[in-house]
Every structure is written in C-alpha cells, then in structure tokens.
C-alpha cells in the first residue's frame, strides 16, 4: 500500500491542539468573568482571628460534648439509612424502567407490541422523571419540604431520597446496560423472557458495581443528612451550627471528627464487601 493511499488519521493532532486551546481559553475567561484574584484569600483582621481560633482548635477538640456528638451521629446515620432505603427502592425500580438491555435485545420472534411501543415510552418518561429528580439538589428539596410540611423526620428523609433515588436509577441503569450482553443473548436464544434476562443475565454481572456505588451514595447520604441539620433537622449538623455560632470551635471539631470516623468505617466496610463480591 503506497503512502498516498494510507488512511487519514480520523482526529488529527492539529484538531486536538485546537480543542485544548479552546478549553484553556474557557478557563481563563471564567477566572476573568468572576473577577477572581488571590488577594481575596487574605482575610481581614476579624476573619483572621476567627480562622486562627477555628484551626487551632483542631488539635483541641472538646471531650465534653462527646456524648452529644455520638447521640447526634446516631441520628445522622439513621436519617441517612432511612433515606437510602427509600432511594434504593426508587433506584432499583426506576433503574429497571430506565434500562434498555432487557427489551431492546433480540426477543423471541421479533419485537412485540410491548417492545416496540410501551417499553420505549416508559423508558423515555422514566429518563425524564429521574432527570427531574436529580436536577434539584437535596438542600433545595429540603427547603421545599420543610416549608411545606414543617421540620419532620419524613420531610427530611424524602428530601434526600428524591435526588438520590434519581441518581441511583441513572447509574444502575447505565451499569446494567453497559454490562456484557453475551449471557443475555444466550438466555434469550434459549427462550428466556425479558424479565428473566434482566434479573439472571444482566443484573448479576452489574451487581458488584451497583453495590459499591450504593455504598458510596450512602457515604454521601451521611453528609447530606448532616447538612440538613443546618435547617433544624436533629442531625449532627444542627450541633455543628450551634457550636459554630457560639464560637465553641473545640466542639465543632469534636463533631467533625466523629463524622469523619463514621465515614471511614463505612468506607472500610464497603471495601471489604466489594472485595468479597468482585474477587
């Protein structure tokens, strides 16, 4: 094959260079637009005092509030667990409806009316719904629900569960759709139904990743549950806010440390579980 007939590189280096330049330009423009300067990071006198007080307390957390901290932490974990339970149910159900692999494959004897019309419509509607659920942050959902129903446990749980359920549904459906379709095709060829293909050919393959992701979201739920404390929900965030407003930085650090401890514990736990499922 002569050099004149050599295939052209589909994405030439010059184009890549141009794309990189555009991205760099966008970053510079963003800095200029926001009028950012490092001088803004130099605190004023009062601010410096607060910062000094806050960070020097990092090595001197208050042991007096340890009991309160543990009790609040318990509430934080329980809120997160309740929210994750609802989110998981939503995520599994909507994730099923938002995945295509179980109906877009090669059904027995061609697509049925269900596969041609109902399933794609259901898929589109579900994608829209989970997009909506995710597009509003849990803090905004919380503001809405707390205003509407008052500061009740159920409104806090639902505020977290809506965006989390949407996110889980999106990620679960993508993990399932991207897992190897070989087994699914084989089961189809042997007469299995879409539902059987989904649960026995596709989900098992994606399950370790789904589990790991659910654990990660639980970690996020712990943080969200803590943050809702700033809105008056009885989680550790409420204690942090109170201690911070009354300049008791030592107590703030106690709360932060116990929160960190529980997140590390969950991280180690999920690591072990993942190893067991993947290895």
């Amino acid at each position, binding site marked *: 094959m002569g050099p004149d007939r050599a295939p052209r590189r589909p994405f030439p280096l010059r184009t890549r260079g141009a794309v990189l330049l555009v991205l760099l330009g966008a970053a510079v423009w963003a800095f200029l637009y926001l009028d950012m300067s490092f001088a803004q990071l130099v605190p004023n006198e009062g601010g410096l005092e607060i910062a000094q007080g806050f960070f020097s307390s990092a090595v001197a957390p208050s042991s007096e509030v340890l009991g309160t901290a543990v009790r609040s932490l318990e509430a934080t974990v329980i809120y997160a667990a309740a929210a994750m339970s609802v989110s998981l149910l939503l995520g599994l159900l909507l994730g099923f409806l938002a995945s295509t692999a179980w109906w877009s494959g*090669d059904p*027995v*004897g061609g697509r*049925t009316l269900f596969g041609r019309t109902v399933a794609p419509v259901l898929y589109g509607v579900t994608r829209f719904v989970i997009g909506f659920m995710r597009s509003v942050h849990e803090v905004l959902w919380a503001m809405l629900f707390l205003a509407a129903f008052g500061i009740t446990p159920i409104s806090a749980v639902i505020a977290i569960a809506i965006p989390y359920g949407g996110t889980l549904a999106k990620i679960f459906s993508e993990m399932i759709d991207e897992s190897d379709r*070989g*087994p699914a*095709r*084989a*089961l*189809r*060829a*042997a*007469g*299995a*139904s879409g*539902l*059987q293909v989904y*649960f*026995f*050919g596709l989900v*098992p*393959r994606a*399950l*370790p990743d789904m589990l790991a992701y659910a654990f990660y979201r639980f970690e996020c739920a712990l943080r969200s549950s803590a943050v809702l404390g700033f809105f008056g929900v009885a989680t550790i965030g409420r204690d942090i806010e109170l201690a911070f407003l009354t300049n008791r930085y030592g107590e703030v650090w106690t709360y932060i440390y116990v929160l960190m401890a529980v997140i590390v514990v969950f991280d180690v736990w999920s690591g072990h579980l993942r190893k067991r*499922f*993947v290895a």
Partner: protein
Amino acid sequence: MIAPGQASGFRLDGVSVRFGTTAALSDVNLHIEAGEAVALVGPSGAGKSTLLRLLNGTVRPTSGRVYVDGDALASLSRAGLKRTRAAIGFVHQDLSLVPNLRVVQNVMAGRLGRQGFLSSARSMLLPRQAEARRAYELLERVGIPEKLYARTDTLSGGQQQRVAVARALYQQPVALLADEPVSSVDPARARDTVELLTRISREEGLTLVMSIHNLELARECFPRLVGLRAGRLVFDESAGEVGEDEFHALYDLQEAEMLADGA
C-alpha cells in the same frame, strides 16, 4: 411439534441471509436428520455461525424456509418459537456465562425458557434438591462435578466450556448446536470437547450440529461434513469422502478474496 426426549431434525430450503448489503448465506439447501451428527466446516466468514443461528431461530432467512422438526419456523407463533428455542441447546463461541454467578446457577439458567418468572427466580436463588442433583449429574457427565458451587470465573477456560455444555443439556434439549466450541482452547482440549459433545449427543440421541474450522478434527469425530465457503454450500459428504480436493476448495483462498473478506 417439538417435544422433549425426542431428537429433532432440521431442513433449510433455498435459504439466503443478507445483513445489509453483505450476503452471509446464499441459496443453501440442507437436510439434517433427527439424531444425526454434522460438522460445519469452512474458513471464518463462510457463514457457519449464521447457519447455526438460523437453526434456533435467532437469525431469520432473507429468503427461503427453515424447518425444525417439520415445522416452518416462520409460521410458528411466539409461544411456539419460544418452545422451540427452549428445546435447542446452543453452546456459544464466547460461552456467554455470567462470570460472577456460581456454576450451579449458570447451569440452571438453561431452563429459564421453560419456566415462569417466579418459578425461575426460586430455582436460581433457592434451588430444590432435585434441581441441584440434576445440575450435579450433568456436571458429572461433563467431568467437573466438584465445581457445582464454585464461582464460574474461578474456572479455567476448558472448565467454563463444560459449564456451557451442562447449561445447554439442562435445557433437556432435542438438539445441540455448537458454534466453534474449540476456538478458544488448546488442541488437546479441543479434541476432548468435541469428543465430549459427540459422545453425549450419541448417548442422549440428540441431533448435533457443530461449526468447527479444524477439518482434521471434524473428519475424525463426525460422520458427516458440510463445507461452506463465502456463504455457499461447497460440499456435503460423509467424512470418508472428504478428500484433498474439498480441503483445497475450502481453504485455498485467492489473495484477492482474502483482502475482500477483510481477513
């Protein structure tokens, strides 16, 4: 009507298959009797896989007719086609097992096509003793009974292949189709696998159709060889009759043809 415990025959009447503008098979006529063992031979891209997939109804002919057990596949109802598919075991080239399930679950997945959703969920999660015993017996037949509860991806390639065979047998099939089952294992194992499939099909009285590009092995293990090249049936003879000429007819590719195949 296809029924378990009774071998089924296949017939292709003037079958052509086109994928877009490429002709995968052109005007193929083939009759396979119930209980026969047939090897499909030919270079890659000859249409062997397409032919196999016609036989279990996962590929439809562009023209011509496919009969399984006397029934034209095109005239079967959805339920009928599902029944037919459930009765045909297929050993895929890439095995298509779920790697992180246990061997017993992969074997039991063979019968999904005959079960409703709830009963299949029960079988997969809480297999009855009789079901586990049946899976164990099949694994015994393919030579890896000790792997019943092993995770499938801890098995070697050759062992996983046996799991795929056991899954196909768990279907209680009337016919076994195997697509290049030996392409991914070493020559010694290849012979073992081919012999295993021919022996089991003989013992169970199953029709066996296997695509295989090792002509030597095909000639030794199968009474009947069907040669395909570029989508056309080149020969259909008993193993003894297949000689050097046929071999050359299959594999002596012109250089131009190889480039055209993208080989």
